[in-house]
């Protein structure tokens, strides 16, 4: 048992190092033009959003359509901290950014907790609609508040997390992915998965369902909030309209495509679905049409016999580490 888990750790470290080196080389060699370097941070942000949504949708088994709401809370909280503390020089830049990341995550988690409590009694379609409504409420509130500058939004947010600082972004992404995959291989993670598989049985063996549902919502919101902070400090401008339900659906599509309850799947799908629209830019008018067609094709492939056969293949099994 122990040997396998150590092997797993080394493999993870290997994957992380190789991807970091690959990104560094690509950036410094000048192989990537401006169009693609500007995608690096959005990829990391989408990975974080997808992995955190997977916690609620894939592992807890509740469809949440308000993930963009949590993201926007993080984004605005972080941006306000940077604008008021970092830019004015009250705090040195790195400290201000660290504070922005932490506070963005925590405030989003608080809202995750708040939405988690009333929706406990709901499940399935009802919960999905409630989270959708919740996302829209956040958007409207941000739209009408003075501190968030209403519909005009916030601008000139310091670019602490743009592609030049990709190391910080990369580290935060790795932390998110590791934290959630570690969580799923622990006592709490098993409780969350057990609730998805059979809530009555989970209760009968002493798991407090309400506790773990709220916890899953709060943790998921925390990382969505952190992703929001990175977004704000990458783009420099925040508008409430960015965080509408389209954004939530976009994240959900990544999770479904990557596979419910599969963290590596979410990561891969996030990378593909972030790059894809850019790759299709050459097609001009046909871009969104092609995007949709590719999406349908990938969904069909995901549920096809071809993929099943591929996964059963010995070499593929070895590569994905499921052979042991």
């Amino acid at each position, binding site marked *: *048992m122990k040997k396998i888990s150590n092997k797993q750790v080394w493999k993870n470290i290997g994957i992380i190092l190789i991807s970091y080196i690959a990104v560094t080389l690509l950036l410094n060699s000048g192989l990537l033009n401006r169009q693609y370097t500007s995608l690096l941070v959005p990829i990391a942000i989408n990975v974080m959003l997808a992995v955190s949504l997977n916690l609620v949708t894939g592992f807890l088994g509740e469809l949440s359509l308000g993930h963009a709401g949590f993201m926007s809370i993080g984004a605005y909280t972080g941006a306000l901290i940077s604008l008021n503390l970092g830019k004015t020089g009250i705090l040195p830049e790195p400290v201000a950014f660290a504070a922005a990341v932490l506070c963005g995550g925590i405030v989003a988690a608080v809202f995750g907790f708040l939405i988690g409590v009333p929706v406990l009694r709901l499940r399935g379609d009802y919960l999905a609609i409630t989270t959708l409504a919740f996302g829209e409420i956040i958007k409207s509130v941000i739209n009408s508040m003075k501190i968030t500058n209403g519909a005009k939004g916030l601008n000139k947010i310091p670019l602490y997390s743009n592609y030049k600082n990709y190391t910080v972004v990369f580290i935060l992404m790795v932390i998110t992915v590791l*934290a959630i995959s*570690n*969580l799923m*291989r*622990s*006592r*709490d*993670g*098993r*409780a969350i*998965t*057990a609730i*998805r*598989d*059979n809530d*009555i*049985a*989970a*209760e*009968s*063996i*002493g*798991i*407090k*369902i309400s506790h773990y549902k709220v*916890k899953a919502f709060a943790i998921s919101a925390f990382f969505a909030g952190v992703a929001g902070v990175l977004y704000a400090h990458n783009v420099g401008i925040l508008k409430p309209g960015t965080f509408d339900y389209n954004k939530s659906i976009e994240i959900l599509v990544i999770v479904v495509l990557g596979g419910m*309850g599969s963290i590596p799947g979410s990561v891969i799908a996030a990378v593909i679905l972030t790059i894809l629209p850019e790759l299709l830019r050459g097609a001009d008018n046909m871009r969104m049409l092609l995007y949709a067609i590719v999406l349908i094709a990938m969904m069909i492939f995901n549920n096809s016999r071809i993929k099943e056969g591929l996964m059963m293949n010995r070499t593929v099994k070895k590569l994905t580490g499921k052979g042991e």
Partner: protein
Amino acid sequence: MALLEVKNLGISFGGLKAVDGFHITIEEGQLYGLIGPNGAGKTTVFNLLTGVYRPTLGTITLDGKNLVGKGPSEICKSGVARTFQNIRLFGKMTVLDNVKTALHNQVTYSGISCFFHGPSYKKKEAEMTEKALDILKVFELDQYQDTLASNLPYGQQRKLEIARALATNPKLLLLDEPAAGMNPNETAELMETIRLIREKYHITILLIEHDMKLVAGICEYLTVLNFGTELASGTPAEVLNDPKVITAYLGE
């Protein structure tokens, strides 16, 4: 003092009295059977005992402590575990993880350790795995530890459910039709296992069963339920020869 004392237990769904004036006293270490025709309210009694339903009337005390009004997870912590008539496993988790999940309140570590797999995580997880494998070995399920629970054959799924219930370290184990859908060989094997776990873990067992052979073979005491009320109680020999019971099962 009796381990479980139930007095005057009753529940109504609208105008229907599903269980009415139900009494049962189970001594520590007993193997007690609850039988009755379909729709007699046996599973409802289980649901009342485990807090799935809240009784409209009556008291339930385990080891002198009141159980009425507590939720299922709290009742599990007080020492009552159960299985279900229609199997409820965590289908997409492995056999080992199913049992480890049931050790939730037996082996604990902090929520922080769940994120950072530090020394306490490793130690406690190893302890959990060991305990879970011990239980799986009793049911000869350890060879399937990495199989998904939903991929197990039916008979093994039934066994895994009992193993999972046992992992919560109960004083009282409730088995809801453990032999349902099993062939005679599997039933005989199950009877052996039930006897074995009672001795090995020193627990009290209350079981619902339709299979008269199993009931007569291992239960020391029986209560017959019909239309939500008690029809007869006593040793298997007394009860199964009672004309009232024969009428309830076979008709006039």
